[in-house]
């Protein structure tokens, strides 16, 4: 029974990591931009949920409203970042890391000055409180919800990339920017849309995190390193790799943590990733692109 409980814990942690990393796999994987402010976009999503709950009152309605609005808030922040800073730096992907780190610092302090340093509380709706009992196993409803939401996001993103004209444009720009440009695709516009979607996904991740933990200025920093590891281990350019890597990391953390301690588990997961990259330096799944050196 413990093994099944841990299996669920691992998948659940994996789904959280997946939500955090999905947007990154777009902006980093597809565009080569290392956005350290991704975590702060998550924070913005979480505060969006807080603000909406303050306005709407009802926890259930506000959660359902916060998901799309969190997407928009995260996306707009991303758009702003892309338009002001990132677009001038596509030739210097490593430098985007440091610039966005600066943006992250500023956003954190803005949150501190606007909402105050203490954490704020976002109430979970009644229909998400408690657990579903299956054969003596208590599966928290919030975690089931997040798992489902992660699946929805992945499917939606995959469909959007595969089946829409927009998705075709994104893939074309990723695979060969010059050729895409020559075929009449505006790579500027495509970049913006990609960044909007990727950052928006961070906003959604932030909203769901309010169900699990604290909402405070440093919410994003707790996830950013793990999220990048997921993308690196998953390999760039394909959602499939990100999904598998997120679940693998979640399961490893859960099982290592169960048999050792949380601290040791984190270190072990890191060692496992370095070892894995020895075997597959380009990550789990990789597509040959011209976007990254």
């Amino acid at each position, binding site marked *: 029974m*413990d093994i099944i*409980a*841990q299996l*669920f*814990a691992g998948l*659940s*942690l994996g789904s*959280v990591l997946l939500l955090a990393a999905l947007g990154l796999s777009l902006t980093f994987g597809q565009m080569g931009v290392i956005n350290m402010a991704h975590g702060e976009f998550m924070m913005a999503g979480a505060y969006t949920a807080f603000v909406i709950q303050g306005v709407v009152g009802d926890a259930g309605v506000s959660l359902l409203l916060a998901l799309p609005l969190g997407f928009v808030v995260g996306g707009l922040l991303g758009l702003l970042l892309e338009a002001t800073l990132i677009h001038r730096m596509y030739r210097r992907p490593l430098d985007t890391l440091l610039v966005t780190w600066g943006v992250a610092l500023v956003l954190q*302090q803005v949150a*501190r000055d606007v909402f105050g*340093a*203490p*954490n*704020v*509380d*976002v*109430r*979970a709706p009644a229909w998400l*409180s*408690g*657990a579903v009992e299956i054969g003596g196993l*208590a599966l*928290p*409803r*919030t*975690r089931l919800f997040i798992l489902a939401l992660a699946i929805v996001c992945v499917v939606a993103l995959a469909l959007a990339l595969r089946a829409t004209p927009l998705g075709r444009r994104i893939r074309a720009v990723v695979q060969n920017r010059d050729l895409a440009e020559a075929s009449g695709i505006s790579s500027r516009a495509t970049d913006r849309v990609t960044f909007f979607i990727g950052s928006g996904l961070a906003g959604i991740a932030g909203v769901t*995190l309010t*169900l*699990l*933990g*604290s*909402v*405070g200025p*440093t919410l994003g920093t*707790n*996830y950013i390193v793990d999220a990048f590891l997921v993308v690196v281990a998953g390999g760039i350019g394909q959602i499939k790799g990100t999904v598998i890597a997120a679940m693998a990391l979640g399961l490893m*953390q*859960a099982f290592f*943590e*169960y048999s050792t*301690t*949380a*601290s040791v588990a*984190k270190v072990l997961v890191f060692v496992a990733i370095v070892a894995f990259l020895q075997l597959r330096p380009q990550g789990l799944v990789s597509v040959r692109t011209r976007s990254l050196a």
Partner: protein
Amino acid sequence: MRLRSTSRYGATRLSTVSLAALCVVALSACGARVDAGSDTSASAESCVDTSGDTVKIGFLNSLSGTMAISEQTVHDSLELAAQEINADGGVLGKELEIVSEDGQSEPTVFAEKAGKLITSDCVAAVFGGWTSASRKAMLPVFEAQDSLLFYPVQYEGLESSPNIFYTGATTNQQIVPALDYLVEQGTKSLFLVGSDYVFPRTANKIINAYAEAHDIEIVGEEYAPLGHTDFSTIVNKVKSADADAVFNTLNGDSNVAFFKEYKNVGMSADDMPVVSVSIAEEEVGGIGIENVEGQLTAWNYYQTVDSPANTAFVEAFKAEYGEDRPTSDPMEAAYTSLYLWKAMVEKAESFAVEDVTAAADGVTFDAPEGEVVVNGDNHHIAKTALIGKIGADGLIHTEWSSEEPIEPDPYLEGYDWADGLS
């Protein structure tokens, strides 16, 4: 490249010369060796200037970084106490002049800023610090410079520096009474959850020793890294261990994630109560009242304490900082610390560190938590322990009290079961 080869040698030659010069200076400038039998203590002369109408004191709290959440509140109540004292004529007729520094949530910065306050600003005393790491970092600085620190937070004990006054609880004023209370309630088994740092580790060492002597079974002991936010595994372990109660020494954000998870798997204070020693009034709002209602806390002060001194303190604080701001134990301890220093200085009729410490024993203050008395031997203060229950109003209400102040015993020397601990 070939053209530059001459300059290469030039650079080498010059660097050799300047390095040699520096080495000569360095070697000729050696000072005292410790093994020369020289007196290692207090080479520093105090530069505190009390000749004017004012006297400088330092506030050293983290106003930025992860600890700003908690330390800003302490800073606010210190400011309040200073304002009140100044409005009331100051200390020995001198107005307090505050020098405020930011510890940036980093021990190294605390050490640096403590040095600055003492040697550059020449303050008569410093008030602040929160984490054990920040206190441990400042301790050698205060001892080397022979200056005074007032530390306002409950901590893990096992310390008593002649240069620090501890106005928060030590373990026998918080953890031990909490355990006494649990035994009284018939608790037979405990699960320990804590963040991975010195306070929880030491607290749990004490709890283990206590449990052994009082026939309590410790069914689990788990540590989460600071800032850890996924508690599904730990809560799974807690749930399947099915103890009578959980003793929680988690810190900061982790509490939020822990209690949300705890509630999500369907557990509540009725099934397995959680006794927390790091959750005060201002954290309850961030965790969400619905997630912690009915859970227990152990402190020496709550906003709901019924006394004239507390009514005045709470009113003054809210008037200064807003109706929605609660008061909490560390804030009260910080507020008290400034008044205790004032009382010590006035008893000593001097700002000098040696006079103040000599006068410290037996100094009392009618604090919001009740009357507190300074113990001159170990520099802690006698405090009443209060077990509280978190109410639906977000405040904590006293469930149980030790009735009278408990004498501080940082090394737990008065407890037989604690023999092997330090």
